[in-house]
């Protein structure tokens, strides 16, 4: 379960978001510039300096305190066990696919490894890509590899920042279908940010509307 209460000012933009998210799949709908990506970056611990300046904020994940300004708790992002996938995958260009997907997996202790690479490689159908460099992958392949890499790090929460926006529908649908199965198959809840309504229909989770730095539960 994810709970947060965050306030942040960046120039003219003001973010003020509170939520308790209990569902396996949560979607945040909103236009560009509404604060969706900023929220994900805050949850992942990527904007800690700004959050510390704001002098306010709390983030809890599964009873763990990730950030609590008042009590000076601020877990660094590498210890938060939160996965984040961006639109362009952010695969490491100097590593091949196999090295990319094993990057986080190898950093886990054996007892922390919830998913076996072989199983996921088969599910995502990327076995034939393992020796390739990211520059030789198509957009859809890059996203499947990025998804595999993120899941193999066994996060407690998976954040997805418009990961499929750049893909055409034929590539997007199978990945969306797979995403939908992640909470039941691997026990990892999703927080999916998008500006496309059709994604909400496929994923069928709890839907929040993000607008001008505020969050409202709509479904």
């Amino acid at each position, binding site marked *: 379960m994810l709970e947060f209460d965050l306030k942040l000012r960046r120039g003219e933009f003001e973010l003020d978001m509170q939520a308790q998210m209990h569902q396996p799949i949560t979607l945040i709908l909103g236009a560009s510039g509404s604060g969706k990506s900023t929220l994900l970056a805050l949850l992942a611990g*990527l904007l800690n300096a700004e959050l510390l300046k704001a002098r306010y904020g709390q983030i809890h994940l599964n009873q763990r305190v990730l950030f609590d300004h008042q009590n000076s708790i601020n877990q660094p992002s590498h210890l938060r066990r939160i996965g984040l996938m961006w639109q362009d995958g952010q695969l490491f260009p100097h590593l091949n696919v196999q090295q990319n997907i094993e990057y986080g997996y190898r950093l886990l202790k054996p007892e922390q490894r919830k998913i076996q690479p072989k199983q996921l490689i088969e599910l995502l159908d990327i076995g034939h890509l393992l020796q390739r460099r990211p520059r030789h992958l198509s957009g859809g392949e890059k996203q499947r590899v990025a998804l595999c890499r993120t899941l193999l790090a066994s996060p407690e929460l998976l954040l997805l920042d418009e990961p499929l926006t750049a893909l055409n529908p034929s590539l997007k649908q199978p990945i969306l279908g797979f995403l939908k199965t992640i909470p039941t198959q691997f026990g990892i809840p999703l927080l999916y940010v998008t500006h496309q309504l059709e994604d909400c229909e496929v994923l069928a989770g709890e839907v929040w509307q993000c607008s001008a730095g505020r969050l409202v539960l709509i479904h």
Partner: protein
Amino acid sequence: MTLSPDEYQALWLSVKVATWCVLLGLIPAIGLAWLLARCEFWGKSLVEALVMLPLVLPPVVPGYLLLLLFGRQGAIGAWLDQYGIQVAFHWTGAVLASLVMCLPLFVQSIRLSLQQQDIRLEQAAQLLGASRLRVFFTVTLPLCWSGILVGAVLAFGRSLGEFGATITFVGNINGETRTLPLAIYSAIQNPAGEALALRLIALSVLMALAALLLGNWLNQRHQSRLGHRHA
């Protein structure tokens, strides 16, 4: 082209000084570049200005300052002297002078490379569980390899051509501190030395060109591995 033993010595010394300059400058250059590219701190502009200062000062100024500091009576030189270490008027001083003069170019190349990197690659590594140190060694450093390479080549080339700071700090001692530029200078001072000066100049141009071409080739290979287009 035949060279006398003294000329060979000048050539060998130049290569030795330039190589040591690159090797010793590598870690400080990477550290300073990272600090300037990735960190915000009070006094950053001053650090940046100090690093770049040798580029805009007359080379004789850093040379003289080094002499004040590392000469036998200097603050650091007197201390080193107790352990029998002499830097001024010694080839190791030529390395130090070169290092001071080359560092701005070295730092700037790596810094530009770091600034061009997509910061989200480092963030992705962190979110996969890598500590900042691990991210630095497994993502940041491999991705700025081309900047390090270009910086090393520039530093090597600059060191081969270093004259003002070297002659001020370590003098022009045949067989000890007479590098190629100093040998050229000495040859020009000699009325019968024009042919020798021209030979040494040709040698300098060839070496600098070879270093630049090698650096360029290695850089293109690296860029192509990462999937970037060649410039």
